[in-house]
């Protein structure tokens, strides 16, 4: 049987999909991909349904080997060096790993999570409709834990479909947008202004449960204990020490700290990709604007297949490559070999 074998992998890498919904009332966190657009784009390239399970690769490098047949995959998300048997491959494209060859991924650059979709998806036993790993609850399939070297995924033999790329809209580098609340009334106007006007950095101690923010101390008006209530992806809670935490897909389903604001759903993926130590700002927008953005994003996802392009006729956009810092000089899209050697940090 054809397999994709994990031959080396760093921490914080796991199988993730669109998440596990419907059981938050029992304390079961949804989990799911940190960057939903990147997940959907990888699946689109691989010919899968948009929220099919992928391998979410954390910030460190990883290698995958095709065994007993060729495996067709697609790669999106945080850019990093990538090659198959020494021949460089581009991000946001599909690619075929020949039998016995290895796909080698370097460290993430300018992001944190990359997505590797396998043509035909990942075989596993869904729980509450999802294969997403939630290590604390022992959920996830085929491995209910972060991935390790030696893990194997069943793959169908690669189809002979032509390889393709996907043209995603340019990422805005603007502030991370949020709507205030639900407990912004637990903070003074000064504290709220300080929160919105300051530059923040993501702490290196962040994980899939929450991103801790480094910046000014945000004081509460009436203390830091509230009666626990429900949380969402992007809830920004402020614990007793005044250092906000943005709750991510592996969050607890309820929490007892005041939540000053909530990231808009469209910006969750962009926020999740901010590397530790990089400065960024927040911007409050209205509910009407946030929901209009959410509707636009849903439209973007629906129309993703329209953004697929054949790889042979690609007119390689050098500027875009410079932007993601993967090209140092002009290269030929037709001869992937010319990329080799330009991919080093």
């Amino acid at each position: 049987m054809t397999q994709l074998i994990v031959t080396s992998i760093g921490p914080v890498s796991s199988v993730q999909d669109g998440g596990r919904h419907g059981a938050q009332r029992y304390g079961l966190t949804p989990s799911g991909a940190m960057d939903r657009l990147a997940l959907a784009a990888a699946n689109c390239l691989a010919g899968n349904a948009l929220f099919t399970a992928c391998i979410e690769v954390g910030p460190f490098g990883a290698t995958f080997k095709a065994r007993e047949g060729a495996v067709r995959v697609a790669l999106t998300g945080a850019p990093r060096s990538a090659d198959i048997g020494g021949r460089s491959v581009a991000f946001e494209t599909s690619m075929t790993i020949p039998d016995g060859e290895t796909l080698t991924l370097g460290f993430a650059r300018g992001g944190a999570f990359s997505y590797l979709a396998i043509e035909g998806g990942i075989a596993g036993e869904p729980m509450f409709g999802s294969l997403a790993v939630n290590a604390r609850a022992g959920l996830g399939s085929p491995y209910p834990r972060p991935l390790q070297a030696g893990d194997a995924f069943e793959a169908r033999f690669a189809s002979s479909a032509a390889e393709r790329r996907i043209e995603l809209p340019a990422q805005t580098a603007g502030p991370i947008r949020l709507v205030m609340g639900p407990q912004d009334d637990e903070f003074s106007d000064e504290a709220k202004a300080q929160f919105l006007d300051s530059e923040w950095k993501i702490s290196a101690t962040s994980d899939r449960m929450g991103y801790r923010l480094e910046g000014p101390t945000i004081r509460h008006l009436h203390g830091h204990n509230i009666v626990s209530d429900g949380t969402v992806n992007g809830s920004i809670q402020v614990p007793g020490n005044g250092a906000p935490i943005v709750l991510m897909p592996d969050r607890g389903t309820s929490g007892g700290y005041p939540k000053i604001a909530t990231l808009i759903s469209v910006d969750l993926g962009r926020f999740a990709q901010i590397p530790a130590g990089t400065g960024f700002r927040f911007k409050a927008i209205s509910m009407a604007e946030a929901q209009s953005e959410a509707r636009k994003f849903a439209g973007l996802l629906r129309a993703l297949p329209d953004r697929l392009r054949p790889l042979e006729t690609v007119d390689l956009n050098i500027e875009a490559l410079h932007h993601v810092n993967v090209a140092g000089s002009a290269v030929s899209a037709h001869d992937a070999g010319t990329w080799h050697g330009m991919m080093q940090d």
Partner: protein
Amino acid sequence: MSNAATVPLLIPPRLLPSGDSAITVEFSRHIDDASNRRVLALDRALVDTPIAGVTETVPTYRSLLVHYDPVQIGFEELGNKLLVLAERPSPAIAKARRWRLPVAYGGDNGIDLDDVAMTLNTTPDDIVTRHVAGHYRVAMIGFTPGWSYLSGLEPFLHMPRRQNPRLLTPAGTISIGGVQTGVQCLAGPSGWHLLGRTPVRTYQLHREPIFLLEPGDEVTFFAIDASTFAEQDRAAEAGEIVAELVAS
């Protein structure tokens, strides 16, 4: 409404935005039984009268978190519909299910029992007698899978949480903290006082049902000895539901 005069006026809940895809319907800022009943009634009403676009609800002590798809319904429209549902007198709530859960109190199963007795100037036996005499209701489930927060703890047993939360407490722990008692399913951190352990799994994969307790269920406890616990713990591990369902 013609019978408005005979129905006690309910204070409308506050609608708090929780991002662009969820609304927190807040009935109270505190833990109180009446508000929790209203939370559970609204949760029930959304099952009986579904609103298109609502994807998932999460009841807590004092609020109902309503997840929704902003492509299908906007904040204002959903908020108005929720207010109408919340102001409707709650329908006769279906008779709650009542569970009896076995608990091995004290010793290795409840390492704080003696300290709790000392702090409250009484005996460990008195603490157990009081704890099993209580009639509790599942006010919410949260934090980790199956962690069930129960309301109805008698005031004598109200105690502040520990100054230093423990990083690891055993699966099945029955504990008290503040005005609550709780059933913890998975091993994990806790700042509450550990009175005992139940062999009952409130969450168990590959068992039907995966989650045993629902918000709104009634719960009482009865004491078992350590050897019965060990025996039932093995049975529960094999997938048996060792809790007793008294009425449903």
